[in-house]
């Protein structure tokens, strides 16, 4: 699937700004983020802690706590602006049309109800099935997500399941109403790698079966490479790069993306020494002026310190927000030469 395809997107986020009003000041967690999600594709959102990737997904479902406020922007889902819906209309969207799974299923599942009760609650609420029918569907869903002995497990409590099984149960719950979009917020971060492999495979297989779109939020470039069709790279509340997954990994066009890719140790490549992006992630209360990455960027000039670079198309379907892509490209060329030599 190419970026900016001719199809109409199923979800469109336009210039979203979500701010948090804390005692210490305003945290501009998401500050002008735009993207779209097409039917059946997986959009990866990658970035480090505090870059705004999770807040973006919570904003889509309007699940922010009382300190967070969506300042401006539009979230168009099937022609409706979700930000203009009433709370009761929104409830019909949540779980039914757009479902979400979280990093730690233990906190997302209610410990005093059985797995079955929690899946059935969503089914009865959204699909108006009877209790018996809902239970049957719940068992079917548990079987589909690969939970052994679903007739027995349906009556178990969350704490009786292992971490991997709980995440499967969460997925079963999220998919029980056949949503068009599944938002997965770091769904495998708390899991062991062998279990992560199971869950990722399951998600790919279910996506094929149900044809839903997935928004995959993660800090792990490996998971991104494996799962996504298109990728959004976020830094300090902004999208810094946006491209198809192959293009992004082949020709990164933002110094942050490039730095990130070079700083991870890899199984398939041997580095004598890792590249390290200098400095620390800026404090969300005091993001730098101009390009927010300039404090850590080795290509930064005075222009970067004063003017914010816009997110523009630099090659077909490839967006980047950087003033000095030429400088980055020559550095990459030197690096590639060194590698091949």
């Amino acid at each position, binding site marked *: 699937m190419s970026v900016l395809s001719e199809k109409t997107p199923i979800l469109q986020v336009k210039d979203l700004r979500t701010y948090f009003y804390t005692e210490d000041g305003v945290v501009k967690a998401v500050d002008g983020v735009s993207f779209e999600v097409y039917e059946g594709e997986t959009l990866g959102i990658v970035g*480090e*802690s505090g870059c705004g990737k999770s807040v973006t997904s919570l904003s889509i479902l309007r699940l922010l706590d009382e300190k967070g406020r969506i300042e401006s922007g539009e979230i168009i889902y099937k022609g409706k602006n979700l930000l203009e819906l009433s709370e009761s209309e929104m409830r019909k969207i949540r779980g039914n049309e757009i479902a979400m799974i979280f990093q730690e299923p233990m906190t997302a599942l209610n410990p005093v109800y059985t797995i079955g009760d929690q899946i059935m609650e969503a089914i009865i609420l959204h699909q108006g099935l009877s209790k018996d029918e809902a239970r049957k569907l719940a068992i079917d869903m548990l079987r589909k997500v690969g939970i052994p002995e679903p007739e027995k497990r349906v009556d178990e409590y969350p704490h009786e399941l*292992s971490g*991997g*099984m709980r995440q499967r149960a969460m997925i079963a719950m999220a998919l029980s109403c056949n949503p068009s979009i599944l938002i997965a917020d770091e769904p495998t971060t708390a899991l*062991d*790698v*062998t*279990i*992560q*492999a*199971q869950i*990722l*495979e399951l998600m790919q297989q279910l996506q094929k079966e149900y044809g839903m779109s997935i928004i995959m939020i993660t*800090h*792990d*470039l*490996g*998971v*991104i*490479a*494996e799962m996504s069709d298109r990728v959004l790279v976020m830094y300090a509340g902004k999208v810094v790069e946006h491209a198809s*997954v*192959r293009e992004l*990994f*082949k020709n990164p066009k933002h110094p942050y993306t490039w*730095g*990130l*890719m070079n*700083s*991870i*140790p*890899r*199984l*398939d490549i041997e*580095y004598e*020494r*890792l*590249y*390290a*992006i*200098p400095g*620390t*992630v800026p404090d969300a209360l005091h993001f730098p002026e101009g390009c927010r990455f300039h404090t*850590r960027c080795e290509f930064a000039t005075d222009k970067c310190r004063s003017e914010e670079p816009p997110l523009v198309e630099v090659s077909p379907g490839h967006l980047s927000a950087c003033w000095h892509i030429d400088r980055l490209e020559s550095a990459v060329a030197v690096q590639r030469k060194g590698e091949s030599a």
Partner: protein
Amino acid sequence: MSQTIQKNTPMLSVRNLVKHFPIRAGIFKRIVAWVKAVDGVDFDIYEGETLGLVGESGCGKTTIGMTLLGLYPPTDGSVYFNGEDITPYLLPGWKVRSYLKRTYIEKFKQLNHDEMEELPDELKHYAEVYFNDHKGDAGRFIRSFMENRKEKQKALRRKMQIVFQDPYSSLNPRMRIGNIIGEAVDVHRLASSKEERQKMVADILQKVGLYPEYAMRYPHEFSGGQRQRIGIARALILNPKLVVADEAVSALDVSIRSQILNLMEDLQKEFQLTYLFISHDLSVIKHISDRVAVMYLGKIVEIAPKKKLFERPLHPYTVSLMSAIPIPDPEHKKKRVILKGDVPSPINPPSGCRFHPRCPIAREICSREEPPLQEVEEGQKVACFFAGEMS
């Protein structure tokens, strides 16, 4: 990071290390079961190298680190530092006598003099001490371990230090950085004056890439990466020989993680450190280690020089673990082994080979007999009856 393995005596030897935690229940807090976190582990660490210890949650890798530093007393087994048995200093005082009896005295009593040569190196040394220095007097032998116990424990603390995983919980929020790092100086009386202490703290702060002025600040004023640097400074101010890094970079963001990994490599060169690097992340382990030990459910299943392990893993678990890691390259297509099921509970590990219920190549013998950790190729030890079949 030397690729060659020294053949001399190891800096640290671990022999049949066992750590079981009791599970208590009921009003009388009776022990109802044991968590077999570490269940008979042997390995050596040589001076100047980095041994990577990798495995999934609950495999016992962290417990090993904690036990080596005396934070948990071992249930069984011995630990040698430069050939000296340090187990008595890891155990509480009242357990030392029975440990020494079990490990040495009972064996030595049944020993003919000519059998001494056949003992493993660690035991041979103590057999000589027992028969020659103490003339076979068990009481004198035991007393020699109990004398100056506190001092010896303290000396050991200076040789072995630890860097923790969580940069947030590993620093006392109510202490200034200067005191967090300087506490070790006070405890071991390394500075003769306030000025000297201050200078030591300032020096080590600079070595880990922070400003000396930070000594006056509190932990909450720092980011995760900076806190981890402070944790490293706290460990290094004692000038240790061996540093246990327990998931030291796991909680950090990608861009910060590489900074800390580079720093640890630089410090290793500068201070001639030996690392035991514990992590669940095989890519990090591959980057930093010289040799790698893979753990599963309280056991080492494979231990080998890095190159050998990553070029040709021999244990089916190692193979599956490697294939499970997503490669950050969309063009990279690989055959993937997806393991069935979950990691079993360490309270009731499976019979025979602990990996057999999830193993793609398990056969009947695997559920009956436990495969020993054997050298299959030079320097590469594997605990599998069918080593190499999957690679």
